[in-house]
């Protein structure tokens, strides 16, 4: 009898062959067939497992923030004093300690984040930042024309600063001893942060949500964890829903609250003399400020919660991690308003608690799903960028993160 090459047989064909084979007549062939069958079944099982592992999380759990307001208060106030008495030099150390506290107390899947920047890197960036800012400031008083030229140059450099700053901050962030990174191209940044905003202005900002979506794709889709890239799958519609929702909230609030307040104050002023008139003006100024704060807080919280949830729910690191976020609009707005009141009435001393409360809310709203290859991420080495770009953009207030 001719030997049969079973290696080309599928599992189904092997099963057929085994059924039709007389085991007692051909024991060697039966044994060979059984072996092949076992092999095929094991292969199929492995493939099944692998397929499941890529999508099904091994574990999932919410992020935990271990920081405490009281503990951070001590760190903050001591660092504040040291920063003041060293005329700002120690502020670079203070910044590193603050970031280390907030990164190092954030835990995901039993591992904590790390902040790796060195104070001297930050200090160098801060000195250059202050020099640039001071130079711009003095030049702007020397001549409005020189100031306009410098401003144009800075606006022209903004996309570069954004990219360098993102790269620095992500490179200085690590998780499980693997650094993050940013691979966005500066050319793309010029389109997104300079050209498209001008075009969007021409469409009366109606295309703004599209731009915001593209910016988020740029910011998060170019993010790396070691050798793995973050993948995003964002939808423009969600950005329109968030933007329109925020606009409706702002419009409703200004009509529902501002109108009656204005009317009341107007009536009160109409009945009184001159003295009351100025008192009424004061009241209406304060009322307008409060309504403005309420309006901005509610509208921006709605937008931020919507977009953050959408962003996390549609981003993943292939085979390593998937995310879920259920940040509530009202929870965020309530926290922000409470924080503002805490800050104002404590004359700023509540700042540490404010920061801790925010970190807590964002951590508990986030779920990490650990996928099969979470242990196999490889670190990518490259030269340390310096902190200059980040500090320069800090002092010119060009931090553009929306979530």
């Amino acid at each position, binding site marked *: 009898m001719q030997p049969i090459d079973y290696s080309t047989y599928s599992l189904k064909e092997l099963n057929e062959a085994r059924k039709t084979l007389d085991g007692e007549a051909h024991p060697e062939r039966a044994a060979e067939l059984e072996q092949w069958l076992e092999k095929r079944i094991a292969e199929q099982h492995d493939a099944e497992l692998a397929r499941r592992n890529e999508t099904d999380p091994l574990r999932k759990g919410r992020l935990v923030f271990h920081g405490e307001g009281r*503990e*951070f*208060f*001590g*760190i903050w*106030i*001591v660092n*504040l*004093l*040291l*920063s*003041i008495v060293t005329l*700002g030099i120690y*502020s670079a150390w203070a*910044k590193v300690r*603050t970031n*280390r*506290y907030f990164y*190092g107390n954030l835990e995901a899947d039993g*591992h*904590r984040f*790390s902040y790796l920047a060195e104070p001297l890197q930050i200090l160098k960036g801060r000195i250059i930042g*202050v020099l640039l800012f*001071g130079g711009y*400031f*003095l030049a702007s*008083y*020397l*001549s*409005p*024309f020189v100031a306009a030229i410098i401003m144009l140059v800075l606006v022209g450099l903004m996309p570069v600063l954004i990219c360098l700053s993102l790269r620095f901050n992500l490179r200085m962030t690590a*998780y*499980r*001893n693997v650094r993050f990174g940013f691979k966005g191209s500066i050319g793309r940044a010029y389109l997104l942060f300079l050209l498209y905003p001008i075009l969007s202005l021409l469409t009366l900002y109606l295309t703004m949500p599209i731009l915001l979506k593209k910016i988020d794709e740029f910011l998060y889709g170019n993010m790396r964890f*070691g050798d793995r890239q973050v993948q995003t799958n964002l939808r423009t519609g969600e950005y329109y829903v968030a933007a329109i929702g925020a606009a409706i909230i702002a419009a409703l609030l200004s009509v529902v609250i501002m109108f009656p307040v204005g009317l009341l104050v107007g009536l009160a002023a109409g009945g009184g003399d*001159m003295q009351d*008139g*100025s008192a009424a*003006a*004061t009241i209406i*100024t*304060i009322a307008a400020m409060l309504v403005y*704060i309420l309006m*901005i*807080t509610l509208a*921006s919280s709605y937008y931020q919660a919507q977009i953050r949830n959408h962003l996390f729910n549609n981003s993943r690191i292939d085979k390593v991690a998937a995310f879920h976020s259920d940040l509530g609009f009202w929870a965020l707005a309530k926290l*922000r308003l409470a924080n*503002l009141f805490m800050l104002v009435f404590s004359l*700023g*001393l509540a*700042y540490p608690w404010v920061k801790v409360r925010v970190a807590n809310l964002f951590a508990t709203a986030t779920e990490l799903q650990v996928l099969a290859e979470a*242990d*196999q*991420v*490889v*670190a990518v*080495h490259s030269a340390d960028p310096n902190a200059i770009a980040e500090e320069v953009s*800090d*002092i010119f207030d060009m*931090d553009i993160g929306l979530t």
Partner: protein
Amino acid sequence: MQLYQGKLYAPGSSQSCEVQVRFETGELCLQADGVWHSYEKSGLSSPAALGRMPREIRLPDGGLLQVAADKALNQWLDGDGLSARLAAMETNRWGILASLILAPLCLFALFKYAIPALAIGFAQYVPQSYVQIASEHTLLALDQSLLDPSELDAATQKDYLDYWQNTVTQLGLSPASYHIQFRHTETLGPNAFALPDGTIVITDQLVTLLDNDKEVLQAVLLHEIGHVEHRHSMRLIAQTLVSSVVISYMFGDLSGMADLFAGASTTLVQNQFSQELEWQADDYALTQLDKLGKGRDSFAQAMEKLASLAPSSSMERWLSSHPMLKDRIQNARQDAQD
């Protein structure tokens, strides 16, 4: 010595395993997969303790060891160095209390004394050419935007200028360094301002408001000269620059509504600086009026005219760059009685 439980992160990858660690004199020993490895203490690095956070110890091969912190471990890692002592202050009750008292005091002293003193020093060293160019360009920019040529006829202008030359000479100031420019404006209203090089711009609207009274206008001009003589423009630039850098560092890492907070405090601080300079200019004007043998009343009259324009509210004490007119009038009148 005590056995610690730790987590060892492999160099260059996201793998990790549980390890047991001993901290001996001069070396760290850790057991992974049943084998003990030892590392010399001098090859390790670890940033100073921070709250109750686990300690991160960087191994020479790039691996990362994470161990729950305790007193003995902090002492072993940090020793008695400067950064360790500063870190210890953060958890020490007396360190925190002292900072809580000293930080606001130092901030107050910084804004109240250090920054103004620094600004006065800075103003002395600004080169005249900077002042010249800054003044010319500012006037040019204003002429392009807010100011139009004066509608006063030449004779009236000359009348004022002659009177002014006379005043300046009487006070022993150089007539060449103070020149008046008349401008018409719809947007600025009745106003007068001095550029740092001594050019003083008066709007037609102010001349009208003061009923063409030369003596009252003179009081206003003396106030503007006060700004120039004390180099207020340069002081304000330096104060604004330094205080906005300080505030942006204090509130720099806050986002959202807290920006508003930072913006508001910058405005408040700036206004307090500015008001102080206005008082100094007022005092200069009043002293010069005394020198000229004119009554201080002309200054009070000018302020009253300005006060008649708009009702003021008590909020202005904080929201305005100038002191309240009510207070300035009182100041002029009160001193006159002394």
